[in-house]
């Protein structure tokens, strides 16, 4: 029985370590993306440009099942928002710029092309709606101060 208990402890430690590593990696990638300058992003892809409204960059791929079963239905629930679907394998430069290490990845972009929120992994519709509302609020504030 002791071998089983030790194995349980070892496996538990590995799971906890992996969860911590994943959290650290996501935070680091998010920080790097949010610090990225907008002109560099615009130069990388014609898909990223100036808009009237906040929009979403949706990184996906053929190998991503969660994208089709979870993320796309969640994105379909959002109303009045432009979604730019990007193949993370084919558009590697753009994916690298947003530090896409997992699929799906969604980036909520402000109207001026500035990344505001990055979600690595599945992002449910209410979370994206909240982030879009924040992006719209930020847009209104910057318009008022201009």
């Amino acid at each position, binding site marked *: 029985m002791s071998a089983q208990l*030790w*194995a349980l402890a070892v496996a538990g430690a590995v799971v906890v370590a992996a969860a911590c590593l994943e959290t650290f990696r996501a935070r680091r990638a998010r920080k790097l993306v949010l610090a990225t300058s907008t002109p560099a992003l615009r130069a990388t892809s014609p898909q990223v440009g100036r808009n009237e409204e906040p929009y979403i960059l949706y990184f996906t791929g053929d190998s991503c099942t969660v994208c089709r079963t979870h993320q796309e239905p969640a994105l379909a629930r959002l109303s009045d928002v432009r979604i730019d679907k990007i193949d993370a*394998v084919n558009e590697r430069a753009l994916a690298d710029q947003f530090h896409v290490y997992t699929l799906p990845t969604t980036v909520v972009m402000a109207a001026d092309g500035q990344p505001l929120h990055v979600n690595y992994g599945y992002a449910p519709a209410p979370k994206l709606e909240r982030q879009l509302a924040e992006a719209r609020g930020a847009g209104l504030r910057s318009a008022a101060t201009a």
Partner: protein
Amino acid sequence: MSTPTQVVDHSALKVNQTGIVVTVLVAFIGSALFRPLLVLIPLLAIVLLLGTFAPQLALFKQLYFKVLKPRGIVKPRPVQDRPEPHNFAQGLGGVFLAVASIFLIPLPVVGLALSLLVAVLAFVNLAFGYCLGCQIFFQLERRGFIKA
């Protein structure tokens, strides 16, 4: 981006993941009382590796297609998807269980811990749809090690 033209029955994948979790748990808990039950780990490794290269030999998937689906016990859930990432994930699970099998006699803690990790990942896929093997497949494909 090209939408996959193939259809993958996700119920077959779920049955496969359930089979992995149940087999590992039976081996893990059962071996505390009856040590020969550890033989289920290398057997599972063989089943997963055989199923990766020859789908007609995938035991749990065949159980689904030949028994559970025709009798209506499990309903089919076809999804437009690529089978390659799932096969890769299954193969990876098989490799990990094969390595675990090597350790089971000299270092049972390592062997059992590796087997448990495979079961945990299968459970995470089953319950939350997160497939670590598919993410590794994506990274390898992105770096050009695997061609689509």
